[in-house]
């Protein structure tokens, strides 16, 4: 087996991996950095996101997914970062050996000074939801359909019902409509969307596509190809279908946009602690995991709404990985950060004591609140406070703390809220 040595090995060449690799190289230009990507091209899922709306925060302009990716890919080209394409990582060991395989190089091991995990996420499937009915052709996750349409130029269906109002589902509702398909309904089991508000407006409202909250799919009909889908209203408290509210929609396709799950099989197998809420690693503010020298960023850590936030997070992780690989890691004590009172999770879940400057804490709420005030406490002391007109589970929130004020465990919770 071919064995190579790199100071920093980045697993995944999507937006997180690219930004992390560049950031590591910029922080310590003398280090050797490798990006390992399983697809034949860099850019990850951005390559199939041909709609615009990327980069408003990070670049201050509106780009398409491939354009956003290309900004990073162009920089990678001249950076001295080595890229391994069409290469799948099979194993990460606690000693930071990355075992990978490719048709070109066969088996290869990379012994890394630091590792950045940037494998992204996968879509929740029909099976995970126990949707009753037949199992015909024509049931796709929204991202799979997006790849078929945008990468392969193929139409997965002509008459489409979408379950779930996640961003990819909303984007695909518009995309399929533009390609001549009829989107008969978007059904969302929750009383609110998990997608961005701008996507609801631009993708559904502007195209006259109906969206029903508190509705779910209760049956799939059709032996060979989907012929119809039954949708029922759910009780908002139990989220169980209400008998008698069933409506059957004729369609040939059911798209699922019902959530994303970080892909942490390598992470778990390496023995790294996983947060049961995010399904990603537990990290500190540098995005270091419970395994020293292994960092995580992007959707493998927690599912983001905006790629801009992924790039920011990956920049932090890449810089920290470079510092670790060159022996500069500060190893002060860490304190726990915990979401309470309506805050489902925080990233990071741990912070170091005795830092200078500011630390951003990202979090998600478990319900829609208008208005809401997020409060960070260290013991009984309030160290940061942020009030917003609305907070919803679909939008990741951020609160900035003064790192010097961290002298113990932190909580992030909502106070003075109005659940709506």
């Amino acid at each position, binding site marked *: *087996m071919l064995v190579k040595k790199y100071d920093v090995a980045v697993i995944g060449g999507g937006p997180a991996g690219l930004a992390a690799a560049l950031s590591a190289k910029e922080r310590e230009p003398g280090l050797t950095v490798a990006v390992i990507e399983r697809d034949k091209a860099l850019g990850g899922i951005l390559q199939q996101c041909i709609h615009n709306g990327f980069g408003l925060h990070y670049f201050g302009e509106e780009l398409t997914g491939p354009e956003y990716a290309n900004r990073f890919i162009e920089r990678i080209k001249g950076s001295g970062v080595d890229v391994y394409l069409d290469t799948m990582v099979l194993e990460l060991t606690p000693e930071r050996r990355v075992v990978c395989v490719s048709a070109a190089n066969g088996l290869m091991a990379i012994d890394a000074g630091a590792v950045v995990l940037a494998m992204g996420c996968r879509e929740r499937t029909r099976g995970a939801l126990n949707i009753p009915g037949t*199992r015909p052709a024509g049931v796709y996750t929204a991202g799979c359909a997006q790849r078929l349409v945008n990468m392969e130029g193929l139409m997965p269906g002509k008459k489409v019902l979408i379950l779930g109002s996640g961003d990819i589902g909303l984007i695909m509702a518009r995309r399929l409509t533009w390609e001549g398909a009829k989107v008969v309904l978007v059904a969302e089991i929750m009383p609110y969307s998990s997608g961005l508000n701008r996507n609801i407006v631009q993708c559904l409202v502007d195209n006259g596509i109906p969206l029903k909250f508190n509705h779910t799919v209760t049956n799939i009909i059709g032996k060979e190809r989907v012929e119809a889908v039954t949708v029922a209203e759910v009780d908002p408290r139990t989220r169980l279908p209400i008998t008698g509210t069933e409506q059957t929609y004729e369609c040939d396709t059911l798209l699922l946009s019902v959530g994303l799950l970080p892909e942490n099989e390598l992470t778990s197998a390496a023995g790294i602690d996983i947060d049961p809420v995010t399904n990603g690693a537990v990290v500190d503010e540098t995005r270091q995991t419970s395994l020293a020298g292994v960092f995580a960023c992007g959707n493998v850590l927690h599912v983001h709404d905006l790629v801009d936030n992924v790039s920011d997070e990956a920049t932090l992780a890449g810089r920290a990985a470079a510092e670790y690989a060159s022996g500069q890691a500060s190893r002060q004590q860490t304190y726990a950060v915990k979401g309470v009172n309506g805050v489902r999770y925080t990233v990071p879940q741990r912070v170091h004591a005795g830092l200078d400057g500011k630390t951003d804490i990202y979090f998600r709420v478990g319900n829609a609140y208008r208005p809401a005030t997020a409060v960070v406490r260290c013991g009984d002391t309030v160290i940061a406070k942020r009030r917003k007109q609305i907070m919803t589970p679909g939008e990741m929130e951020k609160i900035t703390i003064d790192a010097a004020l961290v002298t113990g465990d932190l909580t992030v919770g909502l106070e003075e809220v109005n659940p709506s």
Partner: protein
Amino acid sequence: MSVNEYDVAIIGAGVTGCAIARQLSQYSVRAVLIDAAEDVAMGASRANSAIVHAGYDCKPGSCEARMNVRGNELFETWCRDLSVPFNRCGSLVIGFDDDDAKTLQDLYERGLANGVPEMKLLSGDEARAVEPSLSPLVTKALWAGSAAITCPYQMTIACAENARDNGVEWRLGARVTSLTREDGCIRVAMGEKSLLARYVVNAAGVYADEISRMLGDDSFTISPRKGEYMLMDRKNTCVRTVVFQTPTKMGKGILVSPTVDGNMFAGPTSVDIADKGDTSVTAEGIAQLTEKSKKSVPGINLRAVITSFAGVRAQPSTGDFIIGISKAEPRLIQAAGICSPGLTSSPAIAEEIVRLIEKAGLSLAPKADYCPTRKAIPEFRHLSREEQAELIERDPRFGRVICRCETITEGEIVEAIRRGARTVDGVKRRTRAGMGRCQGGFCMPRVMEILSRELGAPMTELTKFGGGSRLLTGILKEVDD
């Protein structure tokens, strides 16, 4: 014999028909394996409990009892010869009260009468020592050490491939539309096409009564009985053995079992249905699986479900397997009503049917060049690093991972297509590509590309499992430049 004349036509390419084809292929006979579906293992053989039963359930003296016990004896050898996974993990039937204890005692005695080896009645604590995840409320259990797990569709595919290697022809996607007597033979019509066979074996599963009636034998009917299952992700297994509840009139009850691929499942439900093709999953079924499996194994993590599915079993009106020469037509050999324990029994049924074919008048001379073994498609994920490196050296396509959840390579998919996979599900059952936690969300488009390339078929013609199960409705609208 002309191109369209055969000694034996086997109708039905499920595990029964394919095992018969394999057993028959050791003799110098011209045989053909026919199925309406576009692949083998498309009925009950693709969706069942995958158990090689010990044989204590069957009524002593029944054909089922004989086939089960003999099938269990043969199964491991068949799996070894055919490279099919097999794990003799044993089974427990658990009881919660005095009534159950009595049933377990009856089962034990039936087992003795049927000649089942390695049985033992256990106390609740003894059962929990064997299977720590069992409910604390279990008071008694029947252990059967000869019970095993296997992979039913791999077994079916392996038998079909081995039969083909030994000269049996496949005619898939060919629904038998009529059987008529002609010149001392039987004409088997499949729509426009037809062939002549001296003997016909009816292994048509839930449709066996319809096939039988085509030759005037209406001595039995087959009613479909549906069983629903929930399959759990690999990292969430909590049982080492097959855990049954005490049986009822409707069957062996809902069990919790490991699979040979490291997953775990709960199932089946047991519902008599009207439509022989109804493999839909229902909310009631899932609710029942949830309740019953938690009764056996309270710690089962049903949130780790990755898919649910249903299979349809062929329940015979006679209450026993129907294996014999038809009284209405001496050239028709019945292998019908093969409900549970049909998978277990398949090698024994194959032996029996071949004996019956000989008895019916076909002389069987052993074939000199018969090869009893079949090699599995190389499984990259199960090889050592050295073996993996060697495999890639031989064919670099084994270095390209297509299905990331199950670590299935392009080399495996290409080999599956070479061996007969024509659909996305055909590739899935032969390689496991798409069987993992993402259920093909990532790899399906790539599997489609490989199918399209290898078969020389446009993407828009590819299907999930044949027939009208087209995956795409067309290409993007064309724009004039």
